[in-house]
């Protein structure tokens, strides 16, 4: 019985192979052409789909940009446009470009050393810079004068920082940037994370920004940009700003 099975297996093994071989040969050339054609169509489709999707993305971004820029209200409710708009609209950009005709531009020497800010007395600072420092007539009671820091020592028109501190080491900083210096100041603040208000400081338009516990007041009088900053309330910051005595 086993022998019969083995014989049948051998017979089938050889006969199936022969049966396969006896099958008609295919037209390989035609098959090759067809397969290559199908592959080419596939590649072309893939490439086309890629290009189309790129074009759609570019078009969508372009349209979004245009719509955000032109504030088209008819599509303002579309989720994507809304988000794009809020992304751009929620950013407050404060930019100041200063005089570029300044002959000499001071560059801070590059160094890898981290140095602590050096604070000087008003008198000493005034000998190092060629403009008068505006001093506040009002600072909250608990704050005392700490010092003046000259950002770029050796530059006669360097921005300075006036610092006042209290016992808990909270600071009020008054930064003064002469607009005669070759400088470009740009600061972007996300408005959804901060409260922003426009007020008048001594007849100049100023922006007051309250972000977390820090209040910042920014304005300029075309000669100097002022930034008053501290962990005190809005009213107190305005009082400090208004009281700045400068010529």
């Amino acid at each position: 019985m086993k022998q019969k099975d083995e014989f049948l297996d051998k017979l089938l093994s050889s006969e199936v192979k022969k049966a396969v071989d006896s099958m008609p040969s295919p037209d390989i050339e035609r098959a090759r052409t067809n397969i290559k054609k199908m592959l080419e169509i596939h590649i072309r489709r893939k490439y086309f789909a890629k290009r189309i999707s790129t074009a759609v993305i570019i078009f969508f971004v372009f349209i979004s940009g245009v719509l955000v820029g032109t504030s088209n209200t008819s599509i303002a409710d579309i989720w994507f446009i809304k988000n794009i708009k809020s992304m751009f609209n929620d950013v407050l950009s404060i930019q100041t470009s200063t005089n570029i005709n300044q002959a000499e531009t001071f560059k801070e020497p590059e160094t890898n050393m981290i140095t602590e800010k050096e604070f000087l007395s008003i008198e000493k600072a005034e000998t190092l810079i060629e403009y008068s420092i505006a001093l506040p007539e009002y600072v909250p009671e608990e704050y005392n004068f700490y010092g003046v820091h000259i950002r770029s020592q050796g530059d006669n028109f360097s921005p300075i920082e006036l610092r006042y501190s209290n016992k808990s080491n909270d600071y009020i900083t008054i930064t003064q940037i002469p607009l005669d210096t070759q400088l470009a100041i740009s600061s972007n603040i996300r408005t959804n994370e901060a409260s922003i208000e426009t007020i008048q400081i001594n007849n100049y338009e100023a922006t007051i920004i309250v972000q977390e516990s820090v209040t910042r007041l920014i304005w300029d009088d075309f000669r100097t940009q002022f930034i008053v900053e501290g962990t005190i309330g809005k009213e107190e910051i305005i009082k400090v700003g208004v009281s700045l005595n400068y010529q």
Partner: protein
Amino acid sequence: MHHNIIDSLINMHYEKVYQVICLMFKDKTLSEDACQEAFYEAIKNIKKLNDISMFRPWVLKIAIRKASHLVKKSSKMELTDMIDNEKDISINVEQEALTKELQSETQELIKELDFPYRQVVVLKYHYDMQDKDIANFLDIPIGTVKSRLYRAKNIIKKKIMTANRRQGVRK
């Protein structure tokens, strides 16, 4: 993919795969369509194949699937798992067995087997595949493979014996 690689894959495997499909499905046009589609699909997805020596079994598997799909689609052939056990095998054999030699007769008997039997017989004896590999290849239980092979062999055995008997009577 480089055209030379496509050419060599087609040169090396197309004819054999086509012939196996042709034997299994007994339809030239269908086999041609299935093979072309299978080669296209296999070459398109060749990156998924880790071992290039497995290209032929892979493309054959795709071709079988494609051919079965085409059959179902066109309803040209009925590829059913229902096998008529009661089929009278002696009627066809009667005349043929008297005129054919055992070997060529066996080839004909293989071709005459019902599709499910023919499929497992071709895979088993042409590729010397193990039962579990055939099961895996055709996505059917191993028990089904074993029973189909057993029945296929029995049918062939019976036909050969009947043919031999008639040849003996004739002589």
